[in-house]
């Protein structure tokens, strides 16, 4: 079966691109932050430098790892489901469910390993740049060089490979069992994640307001809530459709009409695309707002802001930026993959008389609904973390810059989702319709 997996990877490199990219980005982020632990543990390092490194690695590495786990898993779920037809074919030609499961997991492991291997180089470069910034801010002594060791590599490969294999297993099991179940597992997991997230957010109140790692609890909590709400997002899409149907038809014509019908039917399958969207909105809002509140709190503490403080602020923004960019790339990646997969469907619509622009308007209308759902689910998740952190860290409840930050994030989400969907769709409908349906 492993040989079959290898062969299948070699024959269809294009269809595995999404998995490879997700594994690559994910492993890069995890290796990058966890290599700071390796750097902190090199012999002869001074305690101050070691503490700064461990703190940065711990705060961001923690929720960064969680994000990667969720991101890689959601991409895998999406790509495995795209292959249900092929698996049906294999099953009908005599492959046992066990063989198919081993093939799909073998493939996922192979691709995830390739992605993680490719990520080592960029992660080392990123790690060096990050440590250089830590030198500038004076948090790490100039003599301390970045090292990549067993912790960075272990975490990077461990997280990426286990996320890939775990998600592949869950997804392929769903496919090989024929009719998808009631998604009870997903509902339970979603509810658990929301509860755990609420616990994380609640833990903020139990912590010392000046504790440097205070940010970790609400950030972790918000991300968990985002992931949990993603499990319920298909229901949210369904709830939105009746209200949005009219305006979408008005705005997008027949394209809007098709979008409504598709969304209603496919709401469940959309969870894979909604997960990265909700994670992006939730995670970007919470981390950027926390950072802003923290900066304000330092500024408001009466101490004059030193150059170092300002450097520290930039450094933190860089760190948060890396994670935000990761989420945004993940979102683009899964939307592009999901859209490219619809080549046949677009061809069938065109054969039935849809013009290219009607197909594109349909994709645009669907993206709009997805973004709206992502914002509706991601925002409360982020608010939970932002409000509790603000309440603990400052004497206010509402953070000053939250609204413009949130608006910016919503704009980026809309732009990324819209462009990823439309650019892919434009490329997909370039193929003649008669060819698109026959492949």
């Amino acid at each position: 079966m492993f040989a079959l997996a290898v062969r299948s990877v070699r024959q269809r490199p294009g269809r595995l691109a999404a998995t490879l990219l997700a594994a690559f980005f994910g492993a890069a982020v995890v290796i990058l932050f966890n290599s700071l632990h390796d750097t902190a543990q090199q012999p002869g390092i001074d305690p101050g430098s070691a503490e700064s490194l461990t703190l940065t690695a711990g705060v961001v590495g923690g929720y960064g790892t969680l994000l990667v786990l969720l991101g890689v898993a959601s991409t895998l779920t999406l790509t495995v489901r795209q292959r249900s037809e092929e698996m049906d074919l294999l099953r009908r030609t005599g492959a046992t469910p066990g063989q198919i499961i081993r093939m799909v997991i073998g493939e996922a492991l192979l691709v995830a390993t390739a992605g993680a291997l490719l990520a080592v180089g960029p992660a080392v470069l990123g790690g060096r740049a990050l440590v250089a910034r830590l030198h500038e801010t004076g948090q790490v002594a100039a003599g301390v060089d970045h090292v990549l060791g067993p912790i960075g590599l272990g975490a990077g490969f461990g997280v990426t490979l286990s996320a890939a294999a775990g998600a592949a297993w869950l997804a392929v099991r769903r496919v090989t069992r024929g009719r998808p179940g009631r998604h009870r597992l997903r509902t339970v997991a979603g509810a658990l994640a929301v509860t755990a997230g609420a616990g994380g957010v609640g833990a903020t109140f139990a912590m010392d307001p000046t504790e440097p790692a205070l940010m970790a609890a609400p950030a972790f909590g918000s991300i968990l809530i985002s992931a949990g709400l993603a499990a319920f997002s298909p229901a949210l899409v369904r709830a939105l459709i009746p209200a949005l149907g009219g305006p979408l038809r008005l705005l997008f014509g027949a394209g809007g009409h098709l979008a409504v019908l598709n969304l209603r039917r496919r709401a469940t399958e959309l969870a894979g695309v909604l997960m990265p969207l909700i994670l992006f909105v939730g995670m970007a809002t919470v981390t950027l707002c926390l950072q802003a509140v923290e900066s304000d709190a330092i500024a408001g503490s009466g101490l004059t802001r030193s150059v170092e403080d300002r450097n520290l602020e930039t450094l933190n923004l860089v760190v948060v930026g890396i994670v935000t960019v990761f989420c945004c790339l993940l979102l683009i990646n899964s939307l592009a993959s999901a859209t490219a997969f619809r080549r046949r469907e677009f061809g069938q619509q065109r054969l039935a008389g849809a013009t290219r622009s009607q197909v594109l308007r349909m994709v645009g209308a669907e993206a709009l609904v997805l973004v709206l759902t992502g914002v509706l689910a991601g925002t409360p998740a982020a608010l939970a973390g932002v409000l509790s952190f603000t309440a603990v860290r400052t004497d206010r409840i509402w953070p000053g810059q939250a609204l413009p930050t949130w608006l910016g994030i919503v704009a980026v989400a809309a732009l990324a989702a819209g462009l990823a969907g439309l650019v892919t769709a434009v490329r997909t409908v370039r193929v003649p319709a008669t060819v698109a349906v026959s492949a």
Partner: protein
Amino acid sequence: MSALRLTGVRRAYGSGEAAVTALDGVSLDLATGSFTAVMGPSGSGKTTLLHCAAGLERPDSGLVEVNGEPMPGGSETRLTRFRRERIGFVFQQYNLLPTLTALQNATLPLTLAGKRVDRARAIALLEEVGLGDRLHHRPDQLSGGQRQRVAVARALVTAPSVVFADEPTGALDTRSARDVLALLRSAVDRHGRTVVMVTHDPVAASYADSVIFLADGRLDPAGELRRPSADAIAARLAHLGDQAVGTGV
């Protein structure tokens, strides 16, 4: 009045050494209210002929006219608009949209053209193809024969000048095939539609008023068979096969 006229239609795929001439100057003229079967060996250009005549592909040269109007050049959008009002197409693999119900699939060409969907008329059409009790089923809840009948309803819904069908019974059992052929026949007899159907099956072809034969991208110079029996068609096909072998192609 001719519903469909092709004049010197040529279509080649690929370029240079690897070029394949799928259609090598095909001319034909089909009257409104006629039912024509197109037959010929695999690779003889039948599908290409239908695609070019239906505006799904552009010929390299030659003219296609539907009801006296030439197929428009220019953007694909113009061609699509022309096509969806005047032409219906039934595919071997149905090509129904999986997220749409039978009724929604059948009325899709109207929806896309921005026309008001007359629900009562659409339901009557689906009842006519025997799917009155399957209006709200999706393709995956229908049998192959039922899917193809939805596809026939979709092809007829705009009251098109010409309906094309490319091996519409190729994936069906004998009984379902007969149902679909009877529907095409009644579209001609009862509604005066013009139907052009590709098939490999002499029995299916015998539902047509006439059969034309294609070999190596050209119409058989021996001409069409009128009011053919399945046996006569089979005999002619065998002859066509011998010829192709005889000329060493």
